[in-house]
């Protein structure tokens, strides 16, 4: 059994196209950087060294220091942990219940479906950032509240995706056959239908991951997300804004990391969409 | 039968497709002539290469993945396969037309039917708008569309399949072409409509003396309408004969199988007859008989020897090496 799995993975790997490989490699590197952050630097991300204010990139400080004397490189790689973590949870947690809601809604149809559609339409009428900002203005800033806000709203996109696919899928012969055979609803939905329709969700989740990282860093940039002095990519870009003329490295380099991570994830998403043969479909409008 | 009577001559034509899944031989060593004013039928299973042949005449296939391996298609003393894009376009516009299998998707959904019929009309620059419109309405009348004045400005979704196929025929004959290629024109339609469309095609052919190539997988369709029939299998022509001769005296086992597999209403059949095995696609050009695995008369000699179209009787060709075995 294990040998089979290994062989399957090996075969799959051969099918991976360039984009996918490059994306996975870059992302993996970033992941490792985040995981092993303490070992990669001798500095503490919060330590303020008043003798080393606003130093440009050098051998001692690879990315320079900021106006508090903190080493930028250290802060960037510690921020990696935070951003990846927040990005991951904000993407995949809503995916789980969003998919469930969408699946039930699409499968049963009728009034459940209509109500759910109205709900998602309403939620999607608000620009996503605006809604999150709105909720944060009520709850206050901070990572916890970002989670709450996103968990409240982000499921709608997945619900919509899965519902659309389920509507098509439930008329297919194998589902009808399963119904005739008397299989339980949950079994039909999750064991039979789901594996076939989940691919577009997975592809989309990669791009959603990027968007969520951009969201979190954007919110932190505006001051609504991670509060200082916790290092976070967007917050660092904001902090460096005042010093943009003298010390360009404070804003530029964290942003570059956002770009790199996002790009890697996009490559993975793109590679997956080619692998699953959906590349020529319109990329899912967010 | 002199060469001058032939309006279209396909000589040693071969084409293959290069795909990710491998090489596929679509047509091999096709030798076929179309005489002026005749209706030629091409019959074969799905995958036998009939549509590819048709499209190749108009050079519609895009060259990767298609590969025009060899041969010529002569029309008016010119090889169609080596024409420039310009002259090819003129030929498509005025000399050779084609109608396709699925009428519903043959029209652009966001433009009116009338617009599309008169598109690229040869006299468009000379005629006024009104004259063009009237021409189109007359054309629609000719193909049997009622109230063409209203229908003219409707969109394809408002027409039924049968009507759209009539419109497609109108579109094809608008410039009075010399040859009409009909690729399974009735396959996507109801049986009753099928009848009407075939009758329409026949009447048009009679009045204009246009030459026609009718492609179908249905022997019944070609039996009713065609003067001569070519039977295709695995990209090759296995038999070519006048309709009567083909049905009365088939000279290839595949043809025999096809004819026998038609259920007869007045005979007592317990099981329907079929040809055992499935169509095989070839990936390499070879000149051995393609039918040996499914043939009831085949022997070892069949597997080794080369085949080519032989004239068994007068104007009756067969690819089979031993047609005498057929009873």
């Amino acid at each position: 059994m294990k040998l089979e799995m290994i062989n399957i993975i090996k075969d799959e790997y051969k099918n991976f196209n360039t984009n996918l490989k490059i994306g996975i490699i870059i992302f993996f590197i970033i992941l490792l950087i985040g995981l092993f952050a303490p070992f990669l630097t001798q500095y503490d991300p919060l330590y303020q060294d008043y003798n080393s204010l606003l130093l440009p990139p050098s051998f001692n400080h690879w990315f320079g220091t900021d106006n508090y004397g903190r080493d930028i490189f250290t802060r960037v790689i510690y921020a990696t942990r935070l951003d990846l973590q927040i990005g991951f949870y904000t993407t995949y947690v809503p995916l789980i219940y969003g998919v469930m809601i969408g699946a039930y809604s699409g499968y049963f149809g009728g009034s459940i479906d209509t109500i759910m559609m109205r709900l998602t339409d309403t939620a999607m009428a608000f620009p996503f950032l605006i809604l999150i900002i709105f909720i944060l203005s009520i709850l206050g800033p901070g990572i916890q509240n970002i989670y709450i806000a996103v968990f409240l709203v982000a499921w709608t996109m997945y619900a919509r995706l899965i519902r659309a696919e389920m509507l098509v899928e439930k008329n297919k012969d194998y589902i009808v056959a399963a119904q005739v055979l008397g299989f339980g609803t949950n079994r039909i939905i999750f064991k039979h239908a789901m594996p076939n329709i989940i691919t577009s969700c997975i592809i989309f989740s990669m791009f959603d991951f990027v968007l969520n990282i951009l969201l979190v860093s954007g919110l932190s940039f505006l001051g609504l997300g991670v509060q200082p002095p916790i290092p976070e990519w967007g917050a660092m870009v904001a902090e460096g804004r005042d010093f943009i003329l003298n010390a360009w490295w404070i804003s530029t380099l964290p942003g570059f990391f956002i770009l790199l991570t996002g790009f890697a994830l996009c490559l993975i998403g793109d590679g997956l969409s080619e692998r699953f043969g959906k590349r020529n479909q319109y990329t899912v409008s967010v | 039968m002199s060469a001058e009577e032939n309006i279209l001559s396909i000589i040693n034509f071969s084409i293959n497709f290069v795909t990710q899944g491998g090489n596929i031989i679509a047509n091999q060593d096709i030798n076929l002539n179309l005489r002026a004013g005749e209706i030629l039928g091409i019959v074969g299973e799905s995958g036998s290469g009939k549509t590819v042949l048709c499209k190749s005449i108009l050079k519609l296939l895009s060259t990767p993945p298609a590969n025009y391996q060899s041969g010529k298609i002569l029309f008016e003393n010119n090889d169609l396969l080596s024409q420039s894009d310009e002259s090819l376009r003129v030929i498509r516009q005025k000399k050779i037309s084609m109608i396709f299998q699925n009428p519903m998707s043959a029209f652009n959904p966001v433009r009116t039917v009338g617009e599309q019929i008169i598109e690229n009309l040869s006299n468009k620059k000379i005629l006024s708008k009104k004259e063009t419109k009237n021409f189109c309405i007359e054309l629609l009348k000719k193909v049997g569309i009622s109230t063409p004045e209203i229908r003219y400005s409707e969109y394809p979704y408002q027409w039924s399949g049968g009507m759209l196929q009539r419109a497609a025929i109108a579109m094809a004959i608008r410039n009075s072409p010399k040859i009409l290629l009909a690729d399974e024109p009735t396959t996507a339609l109801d049986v009753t409509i099928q009848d009407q469309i075939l009758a329409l095609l026949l009447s048009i052919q009679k009045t204009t003396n246009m030459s026609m190539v009718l492609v179908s997988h249905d022997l019944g369709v070609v039996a009713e309408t065609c003067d001569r029939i070519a039977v295709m299998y695995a990209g090759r022509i296995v038999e070519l004969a006048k309709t009567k001769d083909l049905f009365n005296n088939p000279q290839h086992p595949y043809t025999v199988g096809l004819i026998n597999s038609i259920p007869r209403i007045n005979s007592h059949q317990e099981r329907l007859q079929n040809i055992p095995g499935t169509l095989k696609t070839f990936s390499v050009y070879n000149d051995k008989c393609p039918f040996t695995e499914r043939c009831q008369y085949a022997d070892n000699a069949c597997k080794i020897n080369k085949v080519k179209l032989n004239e068994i009787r007068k104007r009756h060709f067969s690819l089979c090496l031993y047609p005498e075995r057929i009873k």
Partner: protein
Amino acid sequence: MKYIHYIFSKVFSILPVIFGVTIVSFFLIHLIPGDPVRIMLHGRATDEVVKQIYQELGWDKPILSQYFDFLFNSIRGDFGKSYIQKALVSDLIFERMAPSVFLLIYSAVLSILISLPLSYISSIKVNSYTDHLIRSVGLIGFAMPPFWIGILLILLFGLYFNIFPVGGYGIGFFEHLYFLFLPSLTIALFLSPMLTQSLRASILDNLSSDYVEVAKSKGLSNKRIIFTHVLKNSLIPVITILAVNLSWLISGAVIIEYVFSIPGLGSLLIRAISYRDYPVIQGLCILFSAMVVIVNLLADLCYMFINPRVLK
């Protein structure tokens, strides 16, 4: 007649959504833990003052009646009064609307200008290196954080090279174009990859359709085919994409207005949030959602003309 039926059914279908939007906007404020008025005043007020403000804002009435007041007022365009900025919310919104709308339209236009040629090239040279290059570079555009790019563009073109101003809105139409170029470009860089990919997919889809083959068999040249048959069909998704992505346009505009100091609705929102100016926040939320809904409605209505099949 069919047109009227279509229009009515579309307009009708957005009513529940608008309704839902007002409900969410209104009741969300009332979910604030703690006393909203005290939060607004940052805790510096006596009970007397708080009570007075409650009365002024009408927040002491029962909730449902408050909601209906709110609803009817909103329909008339009255979103209440901003206590903190001492003005009618609708006035505040009105005076800041123009720059934001300009920015949105400008960004959309720039996006189309960038995507149209790129998608055309991509689809003509399908699966070539050029195609892959356009796609991969597009992915970079998608992953770029808009605030970061905004700052970089300011740094490069505003400060180092001094070609474009670093912020503000300018006076007069051409100054607007000049001042808003960098901000719109930033937003366009984010939107273009999505637009390019969708356009490319749409063009390729149309190129392989049967009627294109039929057109070819009629003797039309490739150029004719693309211009008369494919382009119109391919543009249909552009309208959808722009309409659907309007919400992302607006989100991006909020951040960009902040970065480039543009006196628009986005910076109004940011300021309102830092002041906890709830009536303004509420009003803006409804406005933005209404914009999204209405633009989507307009897009649906556009389909009437472009794709007659929807009238069926």
